[in-house]
């Protein structure tokens, strides 16, 4: 199995409001096509870890490899490119650009990547929306659709550049059980059918139990 993500001795200290070591010497790895969830109590550092793994937080010590490439210590421009091309991110809140249409939101990261033409991107985006069953919402302004739909749009956006890994920070945290199931099924399908790796932070026991592997965290360590 190919290692898709590897963390070596990652530590992080919060200096404000007081000095707390939020992550203590964390090492783990995950393989291609694996569906992993991270669980733990509030404040155990799981979200912080996820942000570091997603390259959005650069203020830490230790080494991070994505697809066997060292990510730690790279320039922010390089990291932006990595996020754009290799990582899809789904937040607890959907984080869509409110005044853009659903389609435009999904297309945005691909436009940034700039490999495909506008028509190809549009076609891809519609494909993703169809995959998630919301192609009929494509031309609506993204603030005008329901919460479950927004989260699916966010997933479509995460998928648009065919990333190597999808990360989620409580992607179902704001959803009812019906929508949670829909989102879980989508993730499951992506992992098995498209061999995508998924790393999801969650509070939801039921959700976590159905993933391939659960990483439990407590006080900044993996237990």
């Amino acid at each position, binding site marked *: 199995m190919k290692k898709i993500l590897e963390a070596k001795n990652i530590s992080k200290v919060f200096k404000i409001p007081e000095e707390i070591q939020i992550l203590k010497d964390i090492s783990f790895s995950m393989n291609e096509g694996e569906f992993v969830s991270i669980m733990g109590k509030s404040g155990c550092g799981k979200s912080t870890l996820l*942000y570091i793994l997603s390259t*959005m937080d650069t203020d830490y010590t230790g080494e991070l490899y994505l697809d066997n490439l060292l990510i730690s210590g790279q320039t922010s421009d390089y990291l*932006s490119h990595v*996020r754009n091309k290799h990582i899809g*991110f789904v937040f607890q809140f959907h*984080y*869509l650009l409110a005044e853009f249409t659903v389609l435009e939101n999904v297309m945005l990261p691909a436009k*940034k990547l700039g490999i495909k033409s506008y028509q190809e991107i549009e076609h891809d985006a519609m494909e993703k929306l169809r995959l998630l069953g919301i192609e009929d919402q494509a031309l609506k302004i993204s603030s005008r659709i329901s919460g479950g739909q927004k989260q699916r749009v966010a997933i479509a956006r995460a998928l648009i*550049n065919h990333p190597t890994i999808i990360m989620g920070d409580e992607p179902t945290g704001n959803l009812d059980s019906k929508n949670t199931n829909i989102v879980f099924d989508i993730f499951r399908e992506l992992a098995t059918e498209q061999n995508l790796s998924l790393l999801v932070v969650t509070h939801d026991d039921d959700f976590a139990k159905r993933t391939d592997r659960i990483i439990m965290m407590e006080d900044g360590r993996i237990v």
Partner: protein
Amino acid sequence: MTRKKQSIIAALGVTFGIGTYIIMMGFMNGLNGLLDGLILNRTPHIHLYNEIEPSIKQPIDLYRPYKNKTRFVHSIKPKKIQAKIHNALPLIDYLSKQKYVIGVSTQVKAQSFYLGGSTQLNGMLSGVDVEKEKELYSLDQYIVEGSILDLKQNDKGILLGAGVAKKLSLKLGDYIQVTSKSGEVQALKIVGLYQSGMAEVDNVQSYISIKMAQRLLGESNDYITDINIKLKDMTKAPELAKKMEAKFELKAIDIQTANAQFETGSSIRTLISYAVSITLLIVAGFGIYNILNMLIYEKMNDIAILKATGFSGRDVRYIFISQAIIIGIVGGILGLLMGYGVSVLIDNAKFETAALPTIKTFPVIYELKYYIIGIVFAMVSTFFAGYFPSKKAEKIDPVDIIRGQ
């Protein structure tokens, strides 16, 4: 990227800032120009005439044996000289041909009295070439009744000072008798009323034709007492006046000397207008900066989204600066239009004052310079207003924003 309503508000902030600047500059400089014109338009840049003054060299100064001695002369009296400018006609010809001269006009000044029954009023009659006076010193702007052209057609006409007319209860079309020092009496038809706005002038000054003035004084038609010169560049007046004085052996008064106190007032007004313009720009600049700044901080959420989906700091900065500049250009152009529109409104607003008989509305100038400064300033200030926060947004880690939610 920016919500429409907020962008409109930000652009309006720019619009009002720049609009106000344009209006204030146009209006203030219009008023300044009016005040300047009050004096400058009717004053020649160089005034040539014969001054009655004592000779600089007294006979004893020329007597050689006393050359190295200290000499005292008591009770020096001025030399008797003619008011007439010697060789005036060739002189005028010569001056009109100079490159630095816009125009030369001649006057015959005649001390005289206005006769009204048994009363005599002191008066100053200026014999003028009406067309030249109109062209160079806008004499027509001070004619409240009648027409300046009638004086041209009628040698026996007079543009009577409004104060004189009031004192003698005369009106347009009436006849007035004037007498000169030499005793010549003439009946002149009032073809116009002259009002400069300065009572002491209007109570004395009247205009007649040059021929009539010469006739009143009993002089021939080469009798000229004053030559007025309008220059292309007013600031050169003192220097040229000095040269002319030496060359023509005449007294030459430049406008700066003639109106020293006015010069001071004028430069103070210029200073005030600079101060106001700088203040306005600073206030407008801070307004623009604040509005855009707030707009960008409200957009931190979107910045986080963009960064999380792979936009680099440079992209974010580029987006925000370009947005800011678009707001600056749109707001700035609207500001120019608003400034122009309100200027036109003010320009058409009624404004009447006794001092300025021909001014009916507020004076406003439309100078391209202020419009250019306005739009450039709008763009520069919006650029900086976009630049600094976007610089911050460029550096910030997206998680810092997301975690702050």
